[in-house]
């Protein structure tokens, strides 16, 4: 169920990125897609009543693996969030420059390139 909601968020973002006319709305849609993927990735590692994946003196590695959440997707999503930040910052910077040269955020009016 929760996975389906993630996919729904992803598809909503995709719809917004492809259909919306405003640059800022496109950027928000793409950020939404990015968050949907991150959320999906982190949910894959979730375990009900799981413990933090920190090894202590009483337990060995196999015990930890059967009770803790998977730490790898968390590390990966951290990287992916930073990449998403970079992409969003670049998009916002481009949107500002586009606004300076065209005077609008409307993508249908920003068309000097044909086809």
């Amino acid at each position: 169920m929760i996975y389906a909601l993630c996919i729904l968020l992803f598809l909503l973002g995709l719809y917004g990125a492809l259909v919306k006319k405003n640059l800022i709305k496109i950027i928000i849609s793409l950020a939404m897609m990015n968050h949907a993927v991150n959320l999906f990735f982190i949910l894959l590692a979730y375990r009900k009543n799981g413990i933090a994946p920190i090894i202590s003196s009483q337990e060995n590695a196999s015990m930890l693996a059967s009770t803790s959440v998977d730490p790898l997707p968390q590390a990966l999503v951290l990287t992916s969030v930073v990449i998403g930040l970079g992409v969003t910052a670049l998009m916002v910077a481009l949107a500002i420059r586009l606004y300076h040269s065209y005077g609008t955020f409307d993508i249908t009016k920003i068309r000097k390139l044909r086809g």
Partner: protein
Amino acid sequence: MINFSLLPFFVALPLFSALILNLIEKKPGYAYIVALGTTFLLSVLALLSPIATGTYYVGGYGSFAGITMMMDPFSRIILIMVQVLVFLASWYSIGYMKHYTRKSRYFAFVLLMLAGMNGMILTQDFFNLYVFIEIATLASYVLVAYGGRSYELEASFKYLVLGSISSLFILMGIALLYSQTAALNMVIVAQRLDISHPITWLIIVLFAAGFGLKSALFPFHSWLPDAHSSAPAPISAILSGVLIKSVGIYVILRFFFNIIGPEYAPLVLISWLGAISSLVGVILAMGQHDIKRLLACHSVSQVGYIFIGIGLGSIWGLMGAILHMINHSAFKSLLFLNAGSIEHATGERDFFNMGGLKKRMPWTNITSFIGFSAIGGIPPLNGFWSKLILIYACIHANQLLLALIIATVAIMTLTLFPKIQKYVFLGELPDKYHHVKEVPWSMIAPMLVLSAFCIGLGSIFVVPAWREAILIPAINVLLNGSWFEAISYVP
């Protein structure tokens, strides 16, 4: 002999040089030395590397827990192609970027893009692949917008939106792969992946859409003509020559042939999408009168050729695809550099407004004649051989319609390029171009090297010893699964 412990240098050295370039921003003279030195050193390293399979374990953690980098005969071809082309493009940039400001920042982005491409060619870890793809493509978005004029910003934004959508498809695919196999190393994923599971088909669809968008396959080709024609000419050469191949086609080949296996991959679909995109690309190119835009549209059709070869999935098809990848990177970047020279000298990109430049720019005239002959498939040059192999592969696989499409597109290409040659170099010289001079030698020399490639690269196929040494091992990697035998070290 150079051994495989040098593999991380292909990523680390350009990253380090990019940092240095940002520190010496006030002195562009040193920037040229650093950028050219780095790319030249990497080209030499790649050319001297042995034709064998070898791995490097980053941090010494083994292939289960750590990241592994691997070079085999197939990735070696792509690696050499990338290093040599980025070196030539940076050499050309010295003359071309004269009118731009912040040269050292420009070279820093070129080296970041190089680091990203090298990393994704060598890495064996899926998430690492995603990170390197993002490094390479983020640098390319910035470089497309580098001139800062309004149409460049527009092209960059369009490219950025579609590029990040495709990256997110890829990341979703990687998340699903991890959920299916609990591993990210490509070899372990290939061993554990259950082909019959429905999620695997979703992964295949997500990867095909993501990397198809990155390599401008037919339904996703609309961004390419804008992005590749708006960038500065050396960047167009890198984007069309190697970026779409390393980011898109290389990973598709790896994923379909080494990870899920050619018998399960949707190869028929790929070959027909390739056929459609080769037709669409050449028809789009016929309507253009801006040289760079025409070349960019034509890249769509050449990518289509490569995908036809991949889709056949036979030895001949793959040989044609790999050879056409190498050849296309030589002649298309040569032509983009030529277009850049013409634009640099005249300030004009519409070829209907030009004429008579033959006397004024003799070297550009010769190199562009060689480039146009190569792309049109005139027999001794390299383009002829790869198109011949592709047509033969189609007939061999009993796909006569595909062979007909390849031949039709080749004939349409052949009609396209004498037109440019005629309008730009022959005829009367307009009065406004009497001051036009040939571009400096730093721009002519890379074009001459690339023309030599256009003349000589056919020999990789024609000379039997070279074919056995270079092309056949690369095809074996893809078809026979010899990739897995090299990896036995799983702690």
